[in-house]
């Protein structure tokens, strides 16, 4: 997004989406006491004259901040950032980037990393040493990437940190400490990046997203490791301090830098986290934020999540219609999530039999055992004398 040609086009798309959303949102229902992330982004955009000279100058300043002028003495901070860039070198495969980052910059031992990724220690040790060798063979030196590459390489770094976070967050079968270590490491390293490059909106957005998501972790599984979807979670178990920090970070960031996918995802997480109960969730705002996200970072998973928001605002059939557009998408062909969401929406639409079949199809496709059990049990609920009274909204 920081290459100047694409930058303008991207900003146009965001501008359009925001204008559309800002018009529609009041029609769909303005909550009594709105904290509107949408308006925060929209207002600053509409007020700022992004096409004006002052805005252009501001963009150039932002780009210059990324240049990180050479200091007479290398500081520990510079070294950490340099190391992070190296560990996420594009010559490495993604699993190697993750492993090397956790080993060299993160505080984990090879054994801990092996445990986290469920491979034998010797396998992980080999993966790490081969990764180091690979970097050596590219001739890369211990210095920051060339200025022209830096923004792009930073995106790779953030993607790696995002994957580490997800690895830790998604595996929630009981009190497995090494997994919690992964989310903690991801947050710690993202804090460092944000501290070292404070002008980067996406780094701040990513940190906010991690905090706002991790805040819900305790409520996400029961003691025996079963998954609790977002709508059913005990919100008193959410970490209020993390939510506060994430919200504050987002407030400081939105509108000061180009809007990107991490910031948008963080805004959506913030809307969820700020709702005192599932029923009080501001779904129209979430829908509008997804519409902007889809412009900024289109893809089938975003569409999938948007379909849930569409269902909550315009009814389950509307959400199902949107899912239909994903049926022919190759990328979703072997993805259980499409069927899982379809099952959920069919349940909301009052089609328990259709929902059951969709949940069972999803259960067949998932490679996560806790998830398979969850989906099979949801299907099971729908076979006995019709569906149970409590229905769920949203996914955790």
């Amino acid at each position, binding site marked *: 997004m920081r290459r100047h040609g694409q930058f303008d086009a991207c900003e146009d798309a965001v501008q359009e989406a925001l204008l559309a959303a800002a018009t529609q949102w009041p029609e769909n229902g303005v909550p009594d006491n709105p904290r509107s992330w949408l308006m925060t982004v929209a207002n600053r955009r509409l007020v700022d004259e992004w096409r004006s000279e002052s805005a252009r100058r501001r963009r150039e300043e932002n780009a210059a901040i990324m240049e990180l002028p050479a200091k007479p003495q290398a500081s520990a901070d510079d070294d950490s950032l340099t190391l992070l860039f190296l560990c996420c070198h594009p010559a490495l495969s993604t699993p190697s980037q993750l492993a090397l980052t956790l080993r060299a910059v993160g505080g984990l031992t090879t054994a801990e990393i092996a445990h986290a990724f469920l491979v034998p220690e010797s396998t992980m040790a080999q993966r790490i040493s081969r990764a180091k060798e690979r970097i050596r063979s590219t001739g890369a030196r211990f210095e920051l990437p060339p200025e022209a590459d830096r923004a792009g390489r930073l995106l790779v770094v953030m993607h790696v940190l995002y994957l580490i976070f997800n690895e830790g967050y998604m595996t929630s079968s009981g009190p497995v400490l090494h997994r919690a270590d992964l989310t903690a490491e991801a947050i710690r390293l993202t804090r460092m990046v944000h501290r070292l490059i404070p002008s980067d909106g996406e780094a701040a957005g990513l940190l906010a997203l991690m905090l706002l998501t991790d805040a819900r972790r305790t409520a996400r599984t029961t003691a*025996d*490791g*079963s998954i609790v979807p977002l709508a059913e979670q005990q919100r008193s178990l959410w970490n209020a301090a993390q939510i506060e920090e994430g919200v504050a970070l987002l407030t400081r960031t939105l509108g000061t830098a180009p809007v990107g996918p991490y910031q948008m995802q963080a805004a959506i997480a913030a809307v969820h986290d700020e709702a005192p109960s599932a029923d009080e969730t501001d779904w129209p705002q979430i829908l509008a934020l997804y519409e902007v996200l889809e412009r900024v970072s289109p893809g089938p998973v975003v569409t999938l999540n948007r379909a849930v928001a569409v269902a909550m605002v315009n009814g389950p059939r509307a959400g199902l219609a949107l899912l239909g557009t994903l049926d022919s998408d190759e990328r979703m062909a072997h993805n259980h999530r499409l069927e899982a969401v379809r099952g959920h929406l069919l349940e909301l639409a009052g089609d328990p039999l259709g929902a059951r079949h969709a949940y*069972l199809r999803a*259960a*067949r*496709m*998932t*490679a996560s*055992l806790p998830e*398979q*059990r969850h989906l*099979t*049990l949801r*299907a*099971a*609920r729908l*076979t*006995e004398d019709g569906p149970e009274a409590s229905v769920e909204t949203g996914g955790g």
Partner: protein
Amino acid sequence: MIMTFGSAEGALEAMGREWMVEMIHFMQQLDEDLKKSGELVSAEGLADGSQAKTVRLQNGIPVATDGPFAEAKESLVGYWIVDVESEARAIEIASRIVAYVKAPIEVRRVMDAPPEV
């Protein structure tokens, strides 16, 4: 190795929801017990048979087709590898499992004996 066969869906169809809930709790308890006793080496659940691919030679060329090798209901779906004092102990563990799963469990030794030549 202690092996279970079939599919989650097939089991659900046959046995119903309450059984499924009890079965999940049992599996978690069993894993805990085997860890505590030091007998658990590893345990895995396999993805549904519909996600498997079977690779065969056809006219001398390896060809992959969708689906498991065995019939769905007889297809491997999970296993425990346990380190136990005797075969009798392995059968005892399997007996606990079959009481819940209600489908045949296979117990088979992993070749771990040293050569005696």
